[in-house]
């Protein structure tokens, strides 16, 4: 049916091709238009095309605020990156830890714990966010009551609460990716390292973690992106400016109206997440045993 010879003659092949092109237009088209409009010299963030400009990136005038001169946008970008880095580090540590727990250890209730570990992926982000909010709210209140007001600040909405809230579900993803890789690891490699003179810790560091590295890097990129774009959970847990991430600020701006500055933000995000996304695909490709 699909042999190379009759491919191009078959009418169904043309149908398949048109279908795929339509789908690609559907998925990539809107973003492409957004991308183009970031450079359009038109306040309306729409067509017609009124000439090329970089104003939406660099302009300093108050009526035409360029992204890189918008202090709130820049601050949110910084917060997003800080949050994402913290979430990535914690989620990777947990992911490696959990992988060793589920692959190497035997304990009663292991299957139950594995199912439980998948939970944060299944629960809607709204519910996850509100449940963590109410839980930490109660902790903060009782800390304030016992040790005087201010004692529970760590558990009030803010940077660390956003980080913890995101770790709750991002760590599930990193765990899945790293566990899958560790399952492929031949444990006799670790024994071989010990046989050749390594201590157990050295063997894990030099052989096992090295083997896991493609998965760890891939998972780290995914964790970073998940954190960077999260809205549902973050919305409840962010407080003042130090925890206002890009999605939060974008949401509040979009409710008031569109401006080409957001097109410019989109361009920056498309390029940076695009690169990260490509990298993660690359690392998952390299995720075979030879890596």
């Amino acid at each position, binding site marked *: 049916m699909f042999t190379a010879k009759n491919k191009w003659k078959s009418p169904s092949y043309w149908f398949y091709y048109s279908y795929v092109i339509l789908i690609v237009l559907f998925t*990539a088209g809107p973003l492409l238009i957004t991308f183009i409009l970031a450079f359009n010299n038109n306040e309306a963030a729409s067509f017609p095309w009124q000439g090329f400009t970089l104003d939406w990136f660099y302009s300093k005038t108050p009526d035409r605020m360029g992204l890189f001169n918008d202090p709130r946008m820049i601050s949110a970008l910084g917060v997003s990156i800080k949050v994402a880095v913290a979430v990535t580090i914690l989620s990777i540590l*947990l992911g490696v830890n959990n992988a060793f727990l589920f692959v190497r250890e035997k304990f009663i209730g292991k299957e139950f714990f594995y199912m439980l570990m998948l939970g944060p992926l299944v629960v809607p982000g*709204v519910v996850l966010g509100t*449940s963590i909010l109410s*839980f930490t709210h109660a902790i903060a209140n009782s800390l304030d009551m016992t040790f005087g007001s201010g004692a529970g600040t760590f558990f009030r909405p803010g940077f660390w609460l956003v980080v913890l809230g995101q770790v709750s579900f991002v760590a599930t993803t990193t765990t899945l990716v790293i566990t899958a890789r560790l399952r492929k690891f031949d444990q006799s490699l670790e024994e071989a390292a010990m046989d050749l003179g390594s201590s157990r810790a050295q063997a894990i560091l030099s052989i096992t973690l090295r083997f896991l590295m493609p998965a760890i890097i891939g998972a780290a990129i995914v964790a970073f992106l998940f954190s960077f774009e999260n809205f549902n959970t973050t919305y409840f847990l962010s407080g003042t400016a130090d925890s206002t991430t890009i999605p939060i600020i974008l949401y509040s701006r979009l409710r008031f109206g569109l401006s080409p500055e957001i097109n410019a*933000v989109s361009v920056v995000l498309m390029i940076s*997440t695009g690169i990260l996304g490509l990298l993660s695909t690359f690392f998952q490709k390299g995720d075979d045993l030879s890596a």
Partner: protein
Amino acid sequence: MFAKIKKNKGLWLVLTPHLLWIGLLFVLPHIKLFWLSFVDKRSGALTLANYAKFFQSELYRHVFVHTALFAILVTLITLAISFPTAFIVTKVLGKKMKAVVLLAIVLPYWISELIQVFAWMVLLRETGVISYMLQALGITSHNIEFLYKDATIVVGLVYTSILFMIIPIINSLDSLDDSLIEASYDLGGDFWSTMREIIIPHAAPGIVVGSVMVFMLNLGNYVTVTLLGGKNSLWFTENIYNQFIVRFNQNQGAAFGVILLTFSVLLVWVVLKVTGQDMTEAM
């Protein structure tokens, strides 16, 4: 059990962080939420009033049913679009084309949902690109508002969901040996019978996993529905946000959260039971 664990220091070393994470950031918060939903906001007494409010209010019930039906509808449309795509990508396209097309479909998915929604707002709003195009082509003479309609919400949700459906289906179709399709043709099967008896059964796990994920994501969606649907979106998650953020009524919000969670877990459980699929295996 404990005697065993005491001996095994290594187990404690990895079990402790795991328990801290899943316990403090998942289990206890949900217990707290559950508990709150049965507590009266003012008196702190145990009550069923928060649930009663849901079942007595026609508006809340309507919003809930509306959300559930639309989530299902979006799931079905997404499946209808994604299955042919996944099939073509895995079984028709050559290796290079496959990589290119996959990338074109996958990359947008990495970008924040807010940007995706923004892109559609740029297209659909009254002064948006589509409205402009229609006028430029002379089809209409005035601005047309495409936002704030049920259909807009559906388009937006399908858009943000497509990838969560395509990837699991591609994964399951990838493992289908092409020679099985050829064998089916060899034995006299045609396109539809091969589809029905070979390809779809093989892709079933991917279809189920994709549908379950898309359904849950849509049920819990907030950004897409509120931005594209505006005040008319009638999405249940809005009630939860409102109770927590606007009205500071944690208890009512908790009850709504529990209702949403229970419904989604129940529906997913029924789907998995009926189709005989195992979520953990497919993930």
